[in-house]
């Protein structure tokens, strides 16, 4: 009883498959463009994946509770434009970033209430609220770009600053993942998120305040999306209303590549997903391919990872072992 089961777990199989895939892809790009493996390029890869990883981390919380959020990319537009408006009004960057994220958090909370408390269908309800958020993002400037104060308010540092040579977004990614991992994988809070995703009724009967956790998951998702979009706007040096719209696909792809490895949404899995997708993106950029090729590859990745996540390696191993045991005349356990 005190001993853990031995043998190959399904996780280690898929993890091995994943690692060879990752190395293989990097190998292909290195052959095509030897500079792919240079330190600068790898740092650039990390910087590219950092934003995707941050949105994906937020979405992981929603995915763990068993819901879907179709609004975070819309909400991130509102968060980004709110931040831009505050910067243009002369507010200091930290305050503007906070207010931008808070605006997103509000919409996340509304999502959580709609889905958790009033049991509205998650896809449609969040899509509707997302449209509202996107509409509201136009209110600040009527849809035109916001440049005022971007050059000299210091907001650009959010993207440009380096700590010991490492870009600030990468540092933020590492910090966010450390916190995310601690919360979801190591804490009582994380257990409750997972319990809800697995069986919300049983979680409630076990004393979990289900609605609160659902609201929290949607708030985290929205805030992370806003933060990411704010980083992107600081890199663009302007408030661009549509800057956040293309977060939906990469975020879901990152989460589901992770699910294909660990059979459930996890922080580590999402990180690996973002790494894989980032590598592919960076590779195509190095080869000078147009962006629609990336979209195409991302779509393929998403579908392949969903297919892989359905394969139950553990069950296959278990059956094989049991058959061998019976064949050798082993007794019952």
């Amino acid at each position, binding site marked *: *009883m005190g001993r853990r*089961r031995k043998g190959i777990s399904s996780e280690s199989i898929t993890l091995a498959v994943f690692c060879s895939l990752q190395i293989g892809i990097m190998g292909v790009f290195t052959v095509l463009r030897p500079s792919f493996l240079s330190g600068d390029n790898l740092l650039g890869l990390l910087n590219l994946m950092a934003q995707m990883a941050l949105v994906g981390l937020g979405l992981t919380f929603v995915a763990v509770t068993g819901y879907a959020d179709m609004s975070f990319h819309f909400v991130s537009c509102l968060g980004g434009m709110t931040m831009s408006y505050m910067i243009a009004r002369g507010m200091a960057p930290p305050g503007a970033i906070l207010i931008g994220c808070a605006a997103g958090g509000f919409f996340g909370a509304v999502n959580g209430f709609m889905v958790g408390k009033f049991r509205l269908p998650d896809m449609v309800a969040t899509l509707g609220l997302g449209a509202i958020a996107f509409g509201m993002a136009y209110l600040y400037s009527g849809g035109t770009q916001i440049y005022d104060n971007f050059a000299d308010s210091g907001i650009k540092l959010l993207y440009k600053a380096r700590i010991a040579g490492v870009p600030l977004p990468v540092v933020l990614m590492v910090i966010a993942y450390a916190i995310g991992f601690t919360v979801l994988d190591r804490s009582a809070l994380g257990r409750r998120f*997972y319990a809800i995703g*697995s069986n919300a009724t049983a979680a409630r*009967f*076990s*004393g979990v305040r289900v609605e609160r956790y659902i609201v929290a998951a949607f708030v985290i998702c929205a805030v992370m999306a806003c933060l990411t979009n704010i980083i992107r706007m600081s890199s663009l040096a302007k408030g661009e209303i549509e800057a956040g719209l293309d977060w939906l696909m990469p975020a879901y792809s990152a989460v589901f590549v992770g699910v294909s490895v660990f059979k459930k949404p996890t922080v580590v899995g999402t990180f690996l997903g973002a790494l894989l997708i980032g590598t592919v993106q960076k590779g195509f950029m190095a080869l000078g391919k147009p962006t629609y090729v990336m979209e195409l590859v991302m779509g393929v990745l998403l579908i392949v990872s969903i297919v892989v996540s359905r394969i139950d390696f553990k069950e296959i191993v278990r059956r094989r072992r049991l058959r061998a045991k*019976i064949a050798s005349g082993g007794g019952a356990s």
Partner: protein
Amino acid sequence: MEDLSLEMTGIVKEFPGVRALDGAEFNLARGEVHALLGINGAGKSTLIKVLSGVHQADAGQIELNGRRIEINSPQDAIDSGIATVYQDPQMIPSFTGYENIFLGAESDSAGLFPRIRRKKLLARARALLERFPVDIDLTRPVGELQAVEKESIAILRALSRENMSVLVLDEPTSILTRKEIEILFEQIRMLKESGISIIYITHRLDEVFRIADRLTVFRDGRNVATCLTSDKGVDHARIAELMLGRELTNVYPPRGRSPGDAVLSVRGLALAGKFAETSFTARRGWILGVFGLVGSGIDELCKTLFGVLRRTAGTTEINGRKVALGSPSDAIAGGLFLVPGDRRTEGQISDESVSFNVILSNMARVSGMGFLIDRRAERTDAVSIVEELDIKTPDVSEPVSLLSGGNQQKVVIGKGLYTDGEVYIFQEPTVGVDVGAKTGIYEMIRGLSAEKAVIVVGSDCEEIYGLCDHAMVMYQGKVVMDKPASEVRLDQMLLCGLTGKGGQ
């Protein structure tokens, strides 16, 4: 039996932690109705699933009409001529009767878009139906049909296969009315005359003597007895004895000696439209039993006590302190735990491990400041609960979904024990639990009652009666009996729950 239709020998089927079939034997003569009996978990449904290809046997062989066959999928079973009609036959409600009968076999011609000749199908379906003493409109969507008509269509579907020789009926009468049962029996007799062998699974012993030629009793994954229903000395009592493998009375632990101090006191608790104002007290060392049929309000009473449903009136006190009843979280914090009646949806997180489930309601015990979980402490605590309740699992990291019903229930109970509450409510404590584990759970409940207030609630009258020291009966939302169990007989309690009368 000289003319064997089906013979199964040495069938072994193992699930993680439990051997559901352990060298089971079963045979079936041509044209006989053979009843298959056994309590939940005895292995009879696993045997049928092996025969119908839902499960694959780990060992053993199956012979049909003298030829050895391999059944690796439901399609294999159908192709061999073995048809199974489940308790609640699955059909496409919007399709008509004849469309359901020939579902998947609509056309003889191959190709991407085979032609369906509706008139021909309907004529064939009517020809099948002529053999039966019932008149069903085969052109109506089955969603509009009565239970027995659906059952008949499921049987017709089985008959539509040319070579069908073995028909398995899995508790066919459980959803039928008395009159419909007669119709079904008439059909079974006709099928039998045409040489089809029938395996008949049921819990209703009187049906066995009415329809079956032979019977086989399963217990602990093996066939323990096979005999003719006309054999001398075979009666209800003997069969029950074979099924249980022990005297009925030994199942329950001895009653409590005397009521201890009051722990839970409920005053005027009510949920409008579900149950009227109810007051009772639960004491240490004195199990309170609440019996009621489905719809009597017992389910709502449990859920209201646990804070799942919002009461419309009343108060609850534990050890003299008022308990908030806003949510299960409040109830658990107040020292009350419900082991819910519907284990799969309310009790367990099936995909997660035993230890995950055990500590879920009281994670503060293994985490500093209620945040980071000390995984070593989690493991130690889970192992000690597993040992205390004798939960059979290879490891505490095993997903709960892979355990047997009884062990799953023990995990849910373990989760409750881990909260170290003051009051424990067990709702339908042994649904889907095999008899060995049942006794273990009864003993555990009795043992627990020495220190905690225990309430058992359920619709299994014998179980509630066997366990409790004080008997309450609910009928249509009202308490109709409330007296010490020693002053009540089992049949009085049952009658009271059925009619609402005779409780005074």
